[in-house]
């Protein structure tokens, strides 16, 4: 009358289907038993066979357990895209002041000495370049100056200062090895005049350039 216990298969799917079959058979047997046996026995047998019944109630639990396997695997899903970072060649150079004036007056003149000089270190050169192998050159727009004007880089934060140079229309080295850096240096101008040159003035437009080294 009772469904004999059945050997379940090794797989989880086999177990599930076996439970279902057990349950269905149990229900049919329970109904059959009720029609042909005394009430007390029916009650006893029914209660005993209902021990099979939790299998049907456990179906949702099996489903839940199966669906939760993916949860226990932790990852629900992923997606990706590509992000490109492009950096242009950037080369920047600027001075912090628009104009510098150097004046040789009587106060800086030494009696009996022909050469008169005056210096200015009030301006700063700033640069930034992300290219390698770069240097800074300097030149003036004034082709025939009456007086000499010299320039030098002082205390550069990166790169190497060139020697002080007399400005001309030909570019001269001012700073070496500034490639891929951001920095600054003071600009020192020195004007030289001979007493024998008399009075006058020169107006220079000084151009700094970052160029390949």
């Amino acid at each position, binding site marked *: 009358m009772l469904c004999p216990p059945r050997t379940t298969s090794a797989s989880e799917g086999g177990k599930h289907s076996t439970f279902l079959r057990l349950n269905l058979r149990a*229900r049919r047997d329970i109904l059959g038993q009720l029609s042909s046996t005394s009430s007390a026995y029916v009650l006893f047998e029914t209660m005993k066979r209902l021990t099979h019944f939790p299998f049907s109630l456990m179906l949702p639990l099996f489903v839940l357990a199966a669906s939760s396997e993916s949860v226990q695997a932790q990852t629900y899903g*992923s997606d990706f*895209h*590509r992000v*490109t970072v492009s950096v242009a*060649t*950037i080369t920047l150079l600027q001075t912090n002041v628009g104009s510098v004036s150097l004046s040789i007056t009587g106060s800086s003149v030494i009696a009996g000495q022909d050469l008169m000089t005056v210096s200015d270190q009030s301006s700063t050169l700033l640069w*930034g*370049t992300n290219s390698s192998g770069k240097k800074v050159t300097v030149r003036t727009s004034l082709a025939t100056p009456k007086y000499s004007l010299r320039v030098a880089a002082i205390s550069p934060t990166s790169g190497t200062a060139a020697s002080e140079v007399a400005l001309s229309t030909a570019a001269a080295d001012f700073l070496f090895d500034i490639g891929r850096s951001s920095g600054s240096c003071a600009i020192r101008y020195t004007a030289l005049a001979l007493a024998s040159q008399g009075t006058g003035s020169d107006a220079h437009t000084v151009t700094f350039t970052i160029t390949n080294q």
Partner: protein
Amino acid sequence: MKQILYSVIRLLHVRALAVSVFVIVLASETSEAQPIEVRGGNQTLNITSGFAGGEPVAVTNTNSSLRYRRQARRSKITVRTACPGQNFNLSVEAQGVSRGVAAPAVQLIHGMLDTDFIVNIPATGFTRTTITLRYMASATFAQGNSAELGNDVHTVTYTILAQ
């Protein structure tokens, strides 16, 4: 007696079946739909300007988004990148997060481990939501340029998982 027992048994079976169907439908709905999706396609960030004595100007991009579904339990989203030979800096931040808590901006570095991006995503209260991906690219002058070094191409992967 027979009818009562039969009715009880049948009722319990019907309920069990109904619960099973519901669970199966729920589980299939959750698993078949794409749990997470990057929208907006591939992105490019171009750094083109800077300051003398300073650094190049960082750029941002908010043209892509992330769409994700709620899961059966509390979940989180992580991010990682693969960018062999990386030269420049890239970070990503979640904006407009209403389901979960956005982490601070994540620096995307080649070889990084999965890093929390959005955490405490609830398992209830919504079906799916979309947030904005805010990428920020930066570089220093010392890091060079793409003409000499090439572009950084990141494969950025977002993963949703149980928390």
